[in-house]
């Protein structure tokens, strides 16, 4: 297995004139696997960038009374660290997996709207740059990742910083919404014959729930941002206290979005862990049905808890109580998942691969984060905890210990499928352990400094308050995280060219994506298989594992696609043309449409530097470019 032959490149597609290598082929790709790779690389870049921002914060806070950076720059750093990690790192890392994995897991050849898919990516990367570049000009967003108005209105934030934030988020919202419509349609409508919803892999299920959260939550922040944009650019009164505006309007609208957003951040990682644990325990997932229903419950209930972010604003006893109850309630479906994961491992033949370590890491660390979360759900207790480092501890346990651990597990698990080579397990082990220790060393002490009253978002602190030791520990932990992450980067870059070659089924897993070559040919499946259970590949290769699970016989199903065939492992080697499979044409139009959107928003910026006619000209040209590109896009055939 460990040969040094080159892994096959992405199999050539139909439109040879666009090439299969080179920058142009990447700019014009509509292949979900390539788009997934683009998301992965870009998101990892932003993850490192956000990590550097955190590194500078921890450097500043390592000792009391430091002035490594000014207070103003510090505001930009913590704002961009949060914004980057949430919108430019974790969400796109999840998107990388949605893109790459969903069609493969459901037995499809691509997503429902390949060009819209490319569009989502280009809007993301251009929007991300739009929001990130300003920090080099000392003009980065500086109002916190949650941008509370009225602080972020012109009256209190007159520079361009918040403009970049408002418009950047608006742009990113377009990317996420478009992708959500795409994946909802894909999951509903492109599953292989026999793959009922209750036979879908757990990652696809969690992804499915997340798409609905995106569809329902993003419009709300879109409107909140529209109000802020209009206030800042057109003089409206949505957040203008002097005109009678309510200072809580922004907070409510933001958190109606913001709470589902955190489930958007964690559910994909949960899905990845639900793929990892069964594989390396050589056992089916325990309680599949319950895992599905709890995921749906979390998504649904997630819309009813948002004001627990506002326990200190004076909503009144009734509101506080209701939101406390709903928040406590949502701990139940989440806790259920933890138990199901443990039961999955129980009695299994555990292999401690790197992916497994990260998976188990999530189970443990997310539980810690969940416990502090339940502590916040009591309004009186939260009055002490809110706006302190206790909260910072909580959300880093669930986001780093949860989302990031799950995502890294997914990367180690799926790297062989994406590239055809394994990541090095030894380096992976170092990465995991150094990061695990570093993460705990960084964030556990924050429970203490928070309890001792250290506020959030302070650029420095005085000595003698009992916070020094904990801050120093956190900063040392950060150094470990940096080292662990660096090891990962080295591993990632080296293994692309020098990793051990991986077969179709790199780990002995049970789902469809492992039945095709690594990396998959551009058409994914030469023949769409008929699916008769949740673990089609185990049925084929290790039926003892799935003896206890409901199956149907292949011919008892009505095969509604005359071209579908019984489940089998594919060996690849043929092109789409040879197989007669029509492939979508690569096209640059989605990228241009994305660029047009950035241009439109950028035009507005000129209004705030006094150049109104330039603003009009730029925005109008962007609009014309957008409409023209859209027209060309919609009137050209997909394949």
């Amino acid at each position, binding site marked *: 297995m460990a040969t040094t032959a080159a892994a096959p490149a992405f199999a050539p597609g139909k439109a040879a004139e666009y090439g299969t290598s080179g920058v142009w082929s990447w700019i014009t790709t509509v292949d979900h696997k390539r788009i997934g790779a683009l998301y992965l690389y870009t998101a990892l870049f932003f993850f490192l960038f956000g990590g550097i921002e955190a590194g500078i914060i921890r450097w500043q806070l390592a000792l009391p009374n430091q002035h490594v950076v000014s207070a103003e720059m510090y505001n930009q750093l913590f704002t961009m660290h949060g914004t980057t990690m949430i919108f430019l790192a974790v969400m796109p890392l999840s998107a990388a997996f949605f893109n790459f994995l969903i069609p493969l897991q459901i037995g499809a050849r691509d997503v429902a709207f390949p060009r819209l898919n490319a569009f989502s990516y280009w809007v993301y990367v251009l929007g991300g740059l739009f929001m990130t570049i300003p920090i080099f000009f000392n003009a980065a967003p500086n109002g916190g990742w949650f941008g509370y108005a009225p602080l972020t209105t012109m009256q209190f934030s007159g520079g361009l910083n918040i403009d970049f934030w408002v418009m950047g988020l608006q742009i990113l919202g377009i990317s996420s919404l478009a992708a959500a419509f795409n994946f909802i349609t894909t999951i*509903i409508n492109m599953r292989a014959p026999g793959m009922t919803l209750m036979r879908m892999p757990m990652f696809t299920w969690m992804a499915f729930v997340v798409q*609905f959260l995106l*569809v*329902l939550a993003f419009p*709300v922040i879109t409107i909140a941002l529209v109000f802020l944009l209009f206030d800042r650019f057109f003089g409206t009164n949505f957040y203008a*206290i*002097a005109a*009678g505006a*309510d200072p*809580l309007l922004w907070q*409510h609208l933001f958190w*109606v979005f913001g709470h589902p957003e955190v489930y958007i951040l964690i559910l994909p990682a949960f899905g990845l862990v639900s793929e990892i644990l069964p594989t390396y325990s050589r056992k089916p997932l325990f309680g599949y049905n319950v895992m599905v229903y709890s995921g749906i419950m979390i998504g649904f209930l997630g*819309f*009813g808890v948002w*004001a627990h972010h506002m326990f200190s604003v004076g*909503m*009144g006893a009734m*509101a506080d109580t209701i939101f406390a109850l709903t928040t406590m309630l949502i701990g139940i479906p989440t806790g259920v998942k933890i138990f199901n994961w443990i039961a999955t491992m129980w009695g299994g033949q555990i292999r401690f691969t790197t992916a497994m370590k990260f998976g188990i890491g999530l189970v443990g660390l997310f539980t810690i984060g969940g416990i502090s979360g339940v502590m916040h759900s009591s309004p009186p207790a939260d009055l002490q905890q809110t706006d302190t480092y206790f909260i910072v501890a909580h959300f880093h346990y669930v986001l780093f210990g949860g989302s990031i651990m799950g995502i890294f597990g997914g990367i180690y698990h799926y790297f062989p499928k994406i590239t055809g080579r394994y990541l090095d397990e030894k380096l992976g082990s170092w990465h995991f352990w150094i990061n695990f220790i570093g993460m705990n060393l960084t964030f556990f002490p924050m429970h203490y400094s928070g309890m001792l009253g250290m506020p959030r978002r302070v650029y420095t602190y005085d000595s003698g308050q009992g916070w020094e030791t904990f801050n120093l520990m956190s900063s040392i932990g950060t150094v470990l995280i940096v080292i662990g992450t660096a090891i990962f980067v080295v591993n990632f870059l080296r293994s692309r060219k020098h990793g051990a070659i991986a077969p179709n089924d790199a780990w002995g897993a049970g789902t469809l994506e492992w039945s095709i070559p690594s990396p998959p040919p551009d058409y994914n499946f030469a023949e769409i298989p008929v699916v008769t259970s949740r673990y089609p590949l185990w049925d084929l290769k290790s039926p003892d594992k799935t003896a206890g699970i409901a199956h149907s016989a292949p011919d008892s199903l009505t095969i*509604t*696609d*005359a071209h579908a065939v019984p489940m089998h492992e594919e060996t690849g080697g043929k092109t789409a043309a040879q197989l007669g499979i029509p492939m979508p044409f690569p096209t640059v139009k989605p990228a241009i449409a994305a660029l047009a959107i950035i241009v439109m928003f950028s035009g507005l910026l000129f209004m705030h530097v006094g150049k109104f006619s330039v603003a009009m000209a730029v925005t109008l040209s962007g609009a014309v470019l957008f409409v023209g590109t859209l027209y060309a896009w919609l009137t050209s055939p997909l394949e």
Partner: protein
Amino acid sequence: MSDHGHADHAHEHPTWKQYKWVAIILGVITGIEVWIYYTPFKDSPYFVPTLLILSATKFVIVVMFYMHLKYDHKLFRALFTGPLLIAMSTIAALLFLFINRHHAVV
């Protein structure tokens, strides 16, 4: 047998007669809404609930018949009802949260 991706457009359709009646009913309800706005009924505590019920009726009629949710695959009913429920709950919750907040102007 094979429904290859072509939207098998509902086997039943509203007929031209039904469309005509739907339009008439919608027009009549709108007329009633505007009419009661100009009568003393508008000062009664039942005015607002009545309007809400009348509008909700129009809403449902347009969605069921013009958007033919009544005749289409059940999937679309699920795809619409979920978001609608969450939207209405959110409006209701926000209204309750803001109901007693009157501020002195700073």
